[in-house]
């Protein structure tokens, strides 16, 4: 077997197999038993029992290059990412979020103000007040421009994990896939692509609230397909739920621009990051209700059932291409530039 690399590589942060391995080998040593969902669950956040409710906590550090890109910026990502991670645990009404920032000496003040204005607008959109923060400045070259960390807290009556799938469940994606990663990649590598590639970065707690209201207990698993894309989420859900997952490639909502860019640069939209989408596992009997609720929401017009869970091949993700079938590789990250 392979020896673990002795130096951290970019792949260790790319949301794929290498990152999961690093977390399991190194960070899981921090885990200790908690009343609820703790570090060991490797979920989007933690859920701690408080009385008869759950306190959901999540934290996320944000770096993206470039910091301004079509459809958004690092400020919008930092708020959306944390709000969405809370929502993925079933907590769609954030009590508050924090903002810790590390700046590089020489960072333009105008850019900082633009980022903060974007955070303010996104927080208002999500109904998530920023309640405390921290500021550090490091020397030139010691950090790349700006790093933002946000932590969010919320209360939930019921926690949704990403481990709840069983055979027969349907998997719904709330909208088109691959938009964020493809827009950022195109901008970063100066790919002169025609058409309008725009990030989907947005808080989707309202959309998720609608799905939960419609599906109730039949919403059994949720995860936002950020780094590693929808493929990464499906692998995680298959492994944690001990089910196989069969994806219907023809059912995947993909914008024409993203599909064209993907074919051109040889990157499958399934592997590309999203910042305003969720993959939701639903018991079969409630799929139509959940789908209708999603589609009635302005952020969910293109929601679609993309896959189903099966009892065979637990842990495997199978892609039905319409012509044949193959395994869908787990993202490894080394082919994709880091994008958020």
């Amino acid at each position, binding site marked *: 077997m392979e020896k673990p690399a002795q130096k951290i590589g970019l792949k260790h942060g790319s949301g794929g197999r290498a990152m999961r391995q690093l977390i399991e080998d190194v960070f899981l040593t921090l885990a200790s038993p908690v009343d609820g969902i703790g570090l060991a669950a490797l979920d989007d956040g933690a859920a701690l029992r408080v009385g008869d409710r759950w306190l959901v906590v999540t934290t996320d550090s944000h770096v993206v290059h470039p910091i301004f890109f079509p459809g958004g910026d690092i400020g919008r990502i930092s708020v959306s990412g944390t709000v969405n991670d809370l929502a993925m645990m079933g907590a769609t009404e954030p009590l508050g979020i924090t903002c810790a920032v590390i700046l590089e000496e020489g960072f333009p003040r105008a850019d900082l103000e633009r980022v903060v204005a974007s955070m303010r607008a996104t927080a208002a959109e999500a109904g998530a007040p920023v309640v405390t923060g921290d500021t550090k400045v490091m020397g030139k070259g010691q950090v790349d421009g700006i790093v933002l960390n946000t932590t969010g807290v919320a209360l939930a009556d019921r926690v949704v994990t990403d481990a709840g799938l069983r055979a027969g469940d349907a998997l719904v994606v709330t909208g088109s896939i691959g938009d964020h990663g493809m827009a950022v990649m195109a901008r970063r590598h100066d790919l002169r692509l025609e058409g309008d590639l725009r990030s989907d970065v947005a808080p989707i707690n309202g959309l998720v609230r609608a799905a939960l209201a419609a599906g109730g207990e039949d919403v059994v698993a949720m995860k936002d397909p950020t780094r590693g894309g929808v493929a990464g989420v499906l692998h995680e859900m298959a492994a944690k739920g001990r089910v*196989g997952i069969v994806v219907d490639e023809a059912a995947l909502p993909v914008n024409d621009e993203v599909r064209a860019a993907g074919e051109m640069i040889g990157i499958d939209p399934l592997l590309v990051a999203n910042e305003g989408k969720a993959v939701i596992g639903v018991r079969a009997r409630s799929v139509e209700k959940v789908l209708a609720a999603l589609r009635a929401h302005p952020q969910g017009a293109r929601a679609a059932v993309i896959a189903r869970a099966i009892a065979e091949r637990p842990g495997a993700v199978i892609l039905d291409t319409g*012509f*044949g*079938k193959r*395994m869908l*590789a787990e993202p490894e990250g*080394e082919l994709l530039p880091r994008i958020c």
Partner: protein
Amino acid sequence: MSKDLFQELKFRDPARARALAQALARNMDAIGREVAVMHVCGSHEQAIARFGLRAVLPPTLRLVMGPGCPVCVTDGPEVDEAVALALQGVRVCTYGDMLRLPGTARSLADAQAEGGEVEVVYSISQAIELAQAHPAEQVVFFASGFETTAVATAAIALARPPENFSVLSAHKYVPAAMDLVAGSKETRIEGYLAAGHAAIITGWEIFEPFARRTGAPVVVAGFEPLDILAALVKLTELLKDGRPEVANVYPRCVTREGNKAAQASLWKVFQPASGRWRGIGEVPGGNLALTPAFAHVDARRRFAIDTGPVRDDSAAAEARGCLCGRIMLGLATPDHCPLFGTACLPESPVGACMVSSEGQCRIWHTYGGVPDLRQVG
């Protein structure tokens, strides 16, 4: 609807794919025994793996990839020549896939790390631009690819390249490798898919002597999933009827005689030469060497290339258990290799088939590994 999108829909229609799969099953039922057929093209393997086509083939039909990756079959000592040139102060340009291809002991990426000038280019004309930009330096284009790519190299050689530019040819000639596979007792391949893009140049009639000589039918195929399925239907039909003929199911691009002008320039600049292919051995007529008339652009004639200091045959990947040779001959598949997906990964390839995006190991790895999903979903 744009014309391109229409074209795509026409060749990516799952309903037609199902009909073709049924026809294939009927042909195999009529044949009534196991049959192995071979394609010899990385782009075919890409499409087969990307669309999961093996999962819908009848269980009696084995579709094998042969020596269809020109980068993979470039031999270690050929890479050594490029490495030696780079380390003796020549600027070496090559395609991206060639950078990490192992020589006997080192790759061009290693040579680069050791201070050699190595540049990745996307086309040979970029190498010409580099030669023009650095008139005081010698620029060598390490040329890989089958006869299709060799046509581009030939065009440059014919167009009076700058004096400081020359070509180190690792170009390969596919029909020669097909002869070798057909002559092997071990492979037992009964029919072949020929690569449509190569046949655009060569024309399909080039395969007629081969089919007559070997008794194996050849079908020229395009690269969309329906192209490949249709070609397999035709191939199994020829096998069923015992007709060792050549059929062209890619008529929208390929003609009987091919591109005569391209063939003329190819054979003006290159001549077949025997040489070793990695993992396969001596392939009579399998290499494309520059003709004497083009000695002035032939790096092997212009430089005294001493590979002595960079060559180490004991360091070869085969010594580590790599099965690339058997995989390229169609005698094994990547899942037979204990290194596949464990010690041998795209980021740390052991063998050539994991280095190149045309290599079967790399393709299978990209598309999820082992393709046998006939029983699932």
